[in-house]
């Protein structure tokens, strides 16, 4: 099992964090690492961003806080796991590196 890079993203797609997260995730995947991204707060708007779906096609796992999606009326998408804060708690424990973009 390869090392997992955990990423928390809470900002909306127009924030510069999005570009950074996408590039970091792509690089980690290219190096053969696992990547898991947890989206919460305005970060859940990335469900409408095709670049994130592209990332999952390259092997990244994306989990969203369902509570925040419901608050913002963001529709469920097939490429993400409809999760909870428990998923973030586990990710923080399991990842070999954890990066937070707030």
């Amino acid at each position: 099992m390869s090392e997992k890079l955990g990423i928390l993203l809470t900002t909306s797609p127009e924030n510069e964090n999005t570009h950074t997260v996408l590039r970091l995730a792509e690089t980690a995947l290219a190096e053969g690492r696992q990547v898991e991204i947890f989206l919460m707060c305005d970060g859940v708007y990335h469900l409408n961003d095709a670049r994130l779906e592209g990332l999952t096609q390259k092997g990244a796992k994306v989990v969203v806080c369902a509570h925040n999606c419901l608050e913002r009326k963001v529709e469920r998408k097939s490429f993400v796991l409809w999760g909870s804060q428990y998923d973030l708690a586990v990710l923080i424990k399991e990842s070999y590196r954890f990066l937070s973009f707030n």
Partner: protein
Amino acid sequence: MNQVAVIIHKSPFNTLRNSEGLRMAVGLTLEEDNKVTVIFVKDGVYLTGNVAPEKIQSGIIKKHLEALRLLGHRLVVERESMEERGIEEPSVKADVLSSAEVVKILSEADRVIPWQ
């Protein structure tokens, strides 16, 4: 034990995000190996004062603070930030520590989440 430090530094009156950061901190305790310390610095220290931001629809604060404390996790308030704002002591049960002591907590943490 996985030491997780969450830093809150914004006032509770101009953003809903503090409430979300505390909700996240409570959520982190769902993994039993996570030991969470929430650190309040700068305007974030107002969250530990006798305030009721929910009255202006600014999100739940006290319920999350109480949950963290009851679950055995730690709340820390930076002394210098309190003194700068004329706050003598927090109204919730929290450790008041110096900047140097806060830095030590952060340097020893396995994970640090600065909550903006």
